């Protein structure tokens, strides 16, 4: 076989199901207390600092990390359960999600000990928010075209340039960014970029919000003007960020957030059609549920491989490719079926409001965190075509 793709049927262990019950009970309490409305994915208050601390207090942030850094040393499958339950409930995870999923793991791997001891426990307590500084005005998918400079100075670096599309930069305490420390070489155009830990809310950093087509302001332009970063905030090898960028991708690309972003419209459609659907609605719902179930089983399978210490980069890319295309199409398929929902359906207004938002959200899903085109390139390489 050319392509040894594996998607073994992982069953979540019993302890995951116990944890799932705890997460559901916690979220039900939060909903009852008015922290968030699960029917309103388009809420304006995406920053929910108190909720973030309560999730941290439960031990659900950095839960796979070593205990000495505030983690719980629990399994990747348990983290998976927490993530999917939060996502399905439309819980306000923005403040902690990036730190928990990828910034923390990067620090664990590349930060000096005193920084790990300082920052990781605060992530685990839900106190701090991270942003990711990758894209620039002239470098998006082509990560290694980044131009923002880090120039050597006494005891550290001075940063000049602009990052863009930076989600949560306006509320973030830290950013993990790549900056240019050397020009690329003839042999390796990826050479010369270095990963840094940036402390936000400091002199020399200006965050300008950018309005999105959903009406929200989640991403930003971040302008650096002679911003100083001390030497101990270099993460990993100077000029060698390209060696570090790929191994985390499997974590970033295969999680439940890669197919559940618009899930709420499917639930609401099922509510609207009621217990005795006509054939058309039944068939439409049945197909969508089958596709969703398959996606999830693929995603859980990748989580199982990660737990087993493998690096299923191609499988993870497949999950994100299929998952994001699915969640992008979902609002439109639900809209097709919603056209026949009775005028008298009790949740008709909720469904329409949700569809309005989901349809506006859809275009970003196959762009953020690695475009479909980039993913298919990675899959093609895995197949031996490049």
């Amino acid at each position, binding site marked *: 076989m050319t392509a040894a*793709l594996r998607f073994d*049927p992982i069953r979540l262990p019993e302890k995951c199901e116990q944890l799932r019950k705890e997460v559901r009970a916690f979220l039900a309490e939060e909903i009852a207390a008015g922290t968030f409305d699960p029917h309103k994915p388009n809420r304006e208050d995406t920053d929910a600092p108190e909720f973030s601390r309560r999730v941290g207090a439960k031990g659900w942030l950095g839960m796979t990390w070593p205990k000495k850094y505030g983690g719980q040393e629990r399994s990747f499958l348990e983290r998976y359960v927490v993530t999917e339950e939060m996502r399905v409930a439309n819980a306000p995870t923005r403040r902690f999600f990036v730190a928990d999923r990828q910034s923390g793991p990067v620090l664990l791997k590349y930060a000096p000990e005193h920084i790990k001891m300082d920052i990781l426990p605060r992530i685990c307590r839900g106190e701090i928010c991270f942003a990711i500084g990758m894209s620039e005005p002239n470098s998006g998918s082509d990560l290694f075209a980044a131009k923002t400079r880090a120039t050597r100075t006494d005891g550290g670096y001075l940063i000049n340039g602009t990052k863009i599309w930076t989600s949560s930069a306006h509320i973030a305490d830290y950013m993990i960014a790549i900056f240019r420390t050397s020009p690329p070489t003839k042999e390796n155009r990826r050479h010369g970029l270095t990963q840094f830990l940036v402390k936000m809310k400091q002199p020399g950093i200006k965050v300008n919000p950018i309005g999105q087509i959903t009406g929200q302001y989640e991403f930003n332009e971040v302008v650096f003007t002679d911003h100083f970063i001390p030497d101990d905030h270099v993460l990993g090898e100077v000029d060698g960020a390209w060696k570090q960028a790929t191994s985390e991708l499997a974590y970033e690309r295969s999680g439940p957030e890669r197919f559940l972003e618009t899930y709420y419209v499917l*639930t609401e459609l099922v509510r609207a059609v009621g217990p005795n659907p006509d054939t058309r609605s039944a068939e439409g719902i049945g197909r969508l549920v089958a596709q969703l*179930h*398959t996606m999830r089983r693929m995603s859980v399978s990748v989580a199982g491989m990660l737990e087993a210490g493998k690096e299923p980069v191609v499988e993870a890319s497949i999950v994100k*490719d299929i998952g994001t295309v699915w969640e992008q199409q979902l609002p439109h398929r639900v809209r097709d079926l919603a056209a026949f929902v009775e005028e008298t359906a009790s949740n008709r207004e909720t469904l329409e409001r949700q569809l309005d938002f989901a349809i506006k959200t859809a275009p970003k899903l196959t762009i953020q965190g690695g475009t479909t085109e980039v993913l298919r390139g990675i899959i093609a390489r895995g197949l031996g075509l490049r």
Partner: protein
Amino acid sequence: MAESDNIVVETAEKIFADLADPQTINNDRKGSWQAPLWQALSEAGLPLSWVPDDLGGSGASLADGFALLNAAGRFAVAVPLAETMLAGWLLAQARIASPEGEMTVLPGSPKDRVALDADGALSGRARGVPFAKTAKHFAVLAHGKDGVSIALVDATKARIEAGLNVGYDHSDTVTLDKVQPVTLKPAPKGFDQTTLMLMGGVARSLQIAGALESMLDISVRYSNERVAFEKKISKFQAVQHNLARLAGESAAALAAATSAADAIANAKAFDDEVYLEAASAKIRCAEAAEKGGGIAHQVHGAIGFTMEHILHRYSLRALAWRDDFGSESHWAVELGKLVANRGADELWPLVASR
């Protein structure tokens, strides 16, 4: 399941490689490969994998049998291996011993019914029964006034109108007119036609997933050989992205089918969770057969559209298998009804049940 790690699959793959090589079979228009292949499979005990030793079978686990079907799909095996396995499994549910030789199951569609009358005779018409024409016996699920029964029927007692599915395999109409079965026993409690259709659907899903794995394999290979516009077509981004999508469809089919197989192999009953798994597998694998097979043909161009080329052995069979034991449309409607009936807030708990 790129590499087998179980003895049943290893045995089968060796037989398939020796006696069911797709190119050899494709060149042989007379079907002279069929008898030696069936004999080798029978000698290895594979067609009766799911029949316990005391009922005449080889007593393999459900999991091993499912893996065997996936391997059979990778070779697009065109003998009634899956059908005989299913028939043996069905008979074993009622503790009926399996005879030697080719078998198939009926009904092969959720729409058809076989009735059991008070004299113990079977009547009914079943369409699209795979390999009925060549089977020596049928394993039949029948409905009587006391519930569901399972019967072993001598094939010569039935009227058979031969037909072919789109994959050129036998798919026949079987009519039973007051046929006295060889053996008849009540089905176990809770076992009904839906159970049989779900099991058959998972078998077909595994075969489709296997066929897609091979379609991906031969498409990637072909794209690395074929030159157009002075370079290998695998170097064109449009072709690469098509093949990446085919890999995605193949992966989705494999994940859905093996997940459903695992669910059945470890289930205590055919409950809602198993229903979700099995119905989803059939729906998603059928979709993958269409989308993935379409890409495999697109990559191959005209050569893949010829009888001489082996691609159609996989692509057409995968399409044909969609129809058996309930099409994806059937299962989508049934799954949609189940989901709607459970209610909106029970959807996620169902999906997240494993």
